[in-house]
């Protein structure tokens, strides 16, 4: 870069000498050295903060965003997921793939795959789920020796849902917390979901 003048050693030395103070008066040196050493010595008697992870686990706050999981309906015991693909549209890294299984009273999810190795745990899927089907667990232990194991299918997600403690956030709770506190809003999930689903579909043709 011929045009750019470059700082030389003389400039650097000039700036340093102009700003360099202290370093010569002995009492200040002794005082600061002793105060620094006193700090480390004082710390010698503080309790160490290390948590022995595998033996004792840390208590997770109740909003912890850990592993994804699918849950069963409380009363009927069926799968809560109706395959409406809202979570598939909202997922920024597009890791969720859902196929809907139509049937007369309500719909089900034929297949539900979630690539956990690309998931960002941003909790948008939990937030948009109209039937609180997908939730997050209070645990993050997903160590596997093989990436293919992290491609969770529907029953893996259900087993995770049963094996860990569920964290606080579900779709309705989050939306009630965010939405302005009006009277009980007309809770019409199904049509709103279907209508919102359509325009979004062509919008996010993410490869």
């Amino acid at each position, binding site marked *: 870069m011929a045009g750019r003048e470059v700082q030389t050693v003389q400039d650097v030395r000039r700036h340093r000498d102009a700003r*360099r103070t202290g370093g010569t008066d002995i009492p200040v040196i002794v005082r600061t050295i002793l105060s620094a050493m006193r700090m480390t010595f004082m710390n010698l008697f503080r309790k160490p903060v290390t948590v022995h992870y595998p033996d004792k686990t840390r208590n997770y706050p109740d909003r912890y965003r850990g592993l994804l999981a699918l849950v069963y309906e409380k009363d009927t015991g069926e799968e809560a997921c109706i395959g409406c693909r809202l979570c598939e549209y909202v997922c920024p890294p597009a890791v969720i793939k859902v196929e809907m299984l139509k049937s007369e009273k309500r719909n089900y999810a034929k297949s539900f795959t979630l690539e956990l190795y690309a998931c960002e745990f941003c909790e948008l899927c939990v937030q948009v789920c109209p039937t609180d089907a997908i939730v997050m667990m209070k645990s993050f232990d997903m160590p596997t020796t093989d990436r293919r194991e992290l491609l969770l299918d529907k029953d893996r997600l259900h087993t995770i849902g049963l094996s860990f403690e569920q964290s606080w956030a579900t779709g309705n709770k989050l939306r009630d917390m965010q939405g302005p506190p009006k009277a009980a809003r007309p809770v019409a999930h199904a049509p709103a979901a279907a209508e919102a689903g359509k325009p979004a579909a062509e919008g996010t043709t993410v490869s």
Partner: protein
Amino acid sequence: MSIAAPGRVEVDYAGSERLTMNMGPQHPSAHGVFRAILTLEGETVVGVDAVIGYLHRCHEKLSETLTYAQYPSIASKTDYVAAMTSEFAYVRAAEQIGKIEVPKRAQYLRVITSELQRVASHLLWLGTWCLDLGGALGGGATIFLYCIRERELILDLFESLVGARLLYGFYQVGGVRYDLPPGWAKTCRETVDLIDSRITEYERMLEDNPFFMARVQGVGYISRELAEDVGIAGPLLRGSGVNFDLRRADPYSSYDDFQFAVPVETAGDCFARYRVRMVEFRESLKIVRQALDGLPEGPISSRPGLKSVAQTRIPKGEAYARVEGARGEVGCYLIADGSAKPYRMKWRGASFSNLAVLPHIIPGHKVADVVAIMGSVDPVFGEVDR
């Protein structure tokens, strides 16, 4: 790889053979993936060529394919050390175009989280900087571990508020996504007081300590003219004598309700930047206390809860919204075309301009100073490479 014209540079050694050394992408003090090709004469650096782009994910193309509801949680990945303020810039740009009003409580929550994030980010800066200066097997590691111990307290606060420790997605166009859980304000006050006392401890370990002062005073001088010319911002700018802080220049999100001082140093060297950030620690903690005391009741978002991906639509228009991040002015220049996705989003990362000043100030220093300067500039490479 071009270096300065040899004629122009007078060095002590009469033309001794030059050594080209790589402070390569995997270098322990590279603060992430950054490669500096140093041209050395003995211990003195004669030329620097910076190679960046190792962490480039093209956030700007990504933002053209993600809607206004999805992108904030991705925006936190640009400056992953101060994730809250990164989301803030994007969300503020969208609100400025769509003239969306943010309720008072959400503004206070935003102030509390971005100030806590500034303290956490400065703690990581102080820790990694002392680690660079002092070495992993020396005094530097001691201060690093103290800072990490304090930063964990703030991450626990964020974990109980949002659920995540580093990348939150806490901000949303029109407000915030989570409200304070019960008892959070009390633990927050305790943490703030504890960190305040611990910062005096760090200062007692470092303040005019002969070893520390010898390493940082007078090193890496940035003149005010060069600072403005290259566009560096934040603590670096205030370290070079420019009294400019976005929270005071154009007070956004009700920052004018709080009393806080803006530290300005005129020396322009590493020590001045250190002084500015140490004062900013205390000012941010003061803001958090005032915001917690004055936290109003009310909704946390002016738009109904996020129900579907294309719910927020922003009318046609453009805006450049700036936020005072931990490293300087984080800006987001947004062009909306009325649909649910922005037409163009330019991310002005503070670290990109801060890093651009390095080739101008490093030549002439010793190799050990390069590390001290890099640490005091405190670049985060998610924001540099975007």
